[in-house]
């Protein structure tokens, strides 16, 4: 299970980073979202993997790590999820405005110079 989780986080990170490095704003937003999945999962599993140990306290069950998952990373990640949503919104709006004002959705606000056409062999 540990290997599965680690490799999934690695995959999400790789996909996110690759998309972050793209030139089109929408792809960057996609990349950032993927990366935030990865990072949120990463922080979450810092409390280790726990199955069927929800951090809801019940009477008769000792309130300890033996019966419950670590609640702290969960609390941190809960707000992180909501905030990454807010940041996605900001980024999207920036992308939108930059596209409308520059006429290009390139992250630098301008289309790169066109590559030189390849010369055919004579």
């Amino acid at each position, binding site marked *: 299970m540990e290997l599965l989780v680690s490799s999934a986080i690695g995959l999400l990170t790789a996909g996110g*980073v690759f998309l972050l490095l793209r030139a089109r704003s929408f792809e960057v937003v996609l990349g950032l979202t993927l990366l935030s999945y990865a990072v949120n999962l990463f922080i979450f599993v810092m409390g280790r993997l726990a199955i069927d140990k*929800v951090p809801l306290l019940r009477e008769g069950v000792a*309130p300890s790590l033996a019966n419950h998952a670590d609640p702290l990373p969960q*609390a941190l990640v*809960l707000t992180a999820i909501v905030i990454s949503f807010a940041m996605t919104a900001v980024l999207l*709006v920036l992308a939108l405005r930059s596209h409308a004002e520059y006429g290009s959705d390139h992250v630098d606000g301008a289309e790169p110079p066109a590559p030189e056409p390849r010369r055919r062999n004579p």
Partner: protein
Amino acid sequence: MNVAAPVAIAFLAGLLLLALPNRARNLAAIVAGLATLAAAASLWSVSGAVFAGEVVEVSWAWLPFPGADLGFRVDGLALVFGLLVTGIGALVILYARYYLAEDEPVARFHALFMLFMGSMLGVVLAGNLLLLVVFWELTSLASFLLIGYWQKRADARQGARMALTVTGTGGLCLLAGVLLLGRMAGSFDLDVVLVSGDAIRAHPLYLPMLVLVLVGAFTKSAQFPFHFWLPHAMAAPTPVSAYLHSATMVKAGVFLLARLHPALSGTDEWFYIVTLTGLATLLVGAYVAIFQHDLKGLLAYSTISHLGLITLLFGLDSPLATVAGVFHILNHATFKASLFMAAGIIDHESGSRDMRRLNGLWKLMPVTGALAIVASAAMASVPLLNGFLSKEMFFAETLRIESHGLMGILVPAVATLAAAFSVAYSVRFIHDVFWNGEPRDLPRKPHDPPFWMLMPAGVLVLICLLVGILPEQFVRAILEVAARPVTGDRLPEFSLAIWHGLNLPLAMSALGLAAGASLYFSLQRLINLHDIVHLPRGGKEIFDALLGAVLAGARRCTAAVANGSLQRYLAFTLVAAILAAGWPLLTQGLSTGAAPATPVTPLALLLWALAALGAGGVVVLRHHRFVALLFLGLTGLVVSLAFALLSAPDLALTQLLVEVASVLLMMLALYWLPARSRSEVGLAVYWRDATIAGVAGLGMAALTYAVLTRPADGRLAGWLLANAVPGAAGQNAVNVILVDFRAFDTLGEIAVMGLAGLIVAALLADFHADSGTARPRGDRTASLILATAGPVLLPLAVVIAIWFFLRGHNAPGGGFIAGLVLALGLMVPYIGRGNAWMSARLRSDFQLWIGWGLAIAGLTGIGSFVPGFPFLTSAYLAPALPIVGKISIATAMFFDLGVFLVVTGATMVALTAIGRVGATQATAGAAR
């Protein structure tokens, strides 16, 4: 009297002067003069104790580690130097009153002057090395402003910049040196440093520290090869030169040599570096001074030469040489300040400082001439003047060098040669200006200035004479008290007599006088100094070339790194992050722990496969944006399920809701963005990015795996779980952390969320999508299902939101989740029926929700002040309600209400703002 007072008085006077109108020349001079006298008086008030051998100190705790207090101390050296700084300061202020023209910003001049004086007094009185460096840098800054006082003149700006660059660089070296020094001595406290000489000299880092400190001192004191800035600083008004370049600024360097003499000197390194630097400076300065045509240029090179002499004396490292060094500091300050004043008077009265035009002034300004002649004679060390006495001591000491091989011959020989040069330029100063023919087309016909302008120079010349004729009576006590701390309390016996009998030093003096005078007159006769056009050069050109090279290099670096491409910046940032995180992995290898593995379930395998499919789909199909978005949604759902599987129901709910909201948002945004990405060029770029991404992914996976295979430290988690019910009356530990234990964090986070919502609204408020960039909207008929279901779903969503909200403290739910549920419930009819339908029915301004939410959350926190608890302490009671069950009414619930309002508000603001763009555009289209 508090010994920090002189510094404080000077700075306060500077502030007061800044407030005066610039034209108040009399008032400004009076304020500056009185403050200077007050500073001098406050220093004088401790003189009794200091002369009795005490060190008067005061200090306040400053930085939180030992030996770094904000301390001031007055010993003999500091007292005499401080009185020199204030005494000559007072005279220069009086002189400046008559020198500066009426239409110049006089108050600003005096304000800067006092700033400089305060900094200089700080350097002198600092009881702590760090404090000394701070004041040291302040003198550099203040001198920059003073040299550049005539801002309109290019040479003034250039000279100021050069002085700041050179002395500022030296100041940085000094800081580095002082940090090393403080480590070696174990304290930055001067009292400790001065008695730790043995430990410092034995330290392995002694040489680097010494070089750094000396670079600081040498740049400040214009020692070869850093001397070139001083002649360019002559663009300053003459009162500034008279003060900074005779008695203070440039003296700070030799003061530092004197100050740290007990701690640093006594080694071969010190002897060779300091002596040879001083020797070279002495000779070069004196030689170049002969060929200057500018009066102040001559004085500047002469100053360089005399500073070299003082440095040389400190380098010789014998107690008597040290006394001579201190003595020459005082003598040089008096005669050089009066000479600068005389040069300023001549310039002021005649309109020129060029010795090729200024000739035969003796008949026109005899009083000025007489003062200048006496001061020049002191500069040339003619007997019966103060310069002669310290020069005699200097010659005697150069002859006493032992056990350094050739140095015993080289130093006295060069000293005599330099003495001849110094006589030559002194004679030139007098002969060329006051005789040597008639004035040549001067702008004005000069005459002696008013008495009060002559008075300061007169006072200084009088001191030269008194000290020169009656040294025992006038200067012995002062010299003794000043030199004692420099020699490390081993003050030698010394004699200040004018006549020591016929001995070798006297012969060297006589030889210097005779050779210098004949050198000048033969030069005038043979090649006529006035005809020399090409002045010696080198320093400035090298400086300019170096500076140009540094700037060009910086520009190339910037152009190479910061080319304006955000893509490249992001790549750099990511690579840097990967390197920083990967370094331990590479150097220490991946080690795993021994925690028991969690068994793999089929569901987990399925989720893994789906996550891989989702992420892969987004990456591969990114050009087809809509499809990529669907894959992104899939990935989000898998993440949400992973949370559910791994015992985090709150996270699963939040992720699910946020997923829906963000996919909605992106779809709305996609409407205004191109549907497909143009494919990019350059396979190399793909491979580069794929490599970065691959390494990042591998690194994250390795890092996660390394953590997951180690057992957890459960102390914090255990405490949180154990205290959730007794401490916060909540069974949902996650919610308890959010609204109670770590509520302050949450407050910050909802503030960020609210701000993000406002940013979105602000960015889109005046935004009208250009119809050219948007695709045609097509038929506005929305989904029939959504249009019908929306109004039905909305009340349901409200109820579910309330339910989630109320039970949040004990079961999955809470403000964040309830807020998202409500926002999504509101969005369904919004999308189904359109913006116009919705805004006709729902007149709520969601931006206000954000404000109210933050206010309620904040006020809940403040409420706990009333019974006297810290911010955000919660109180609770737990009634049982019908249907909902037992709930806890904690004040934390009001806080959660704030969270709820902010989350709903911000989500709705973001969604509706993007939705409204379409509406505005549609309206604009309809109007057309």
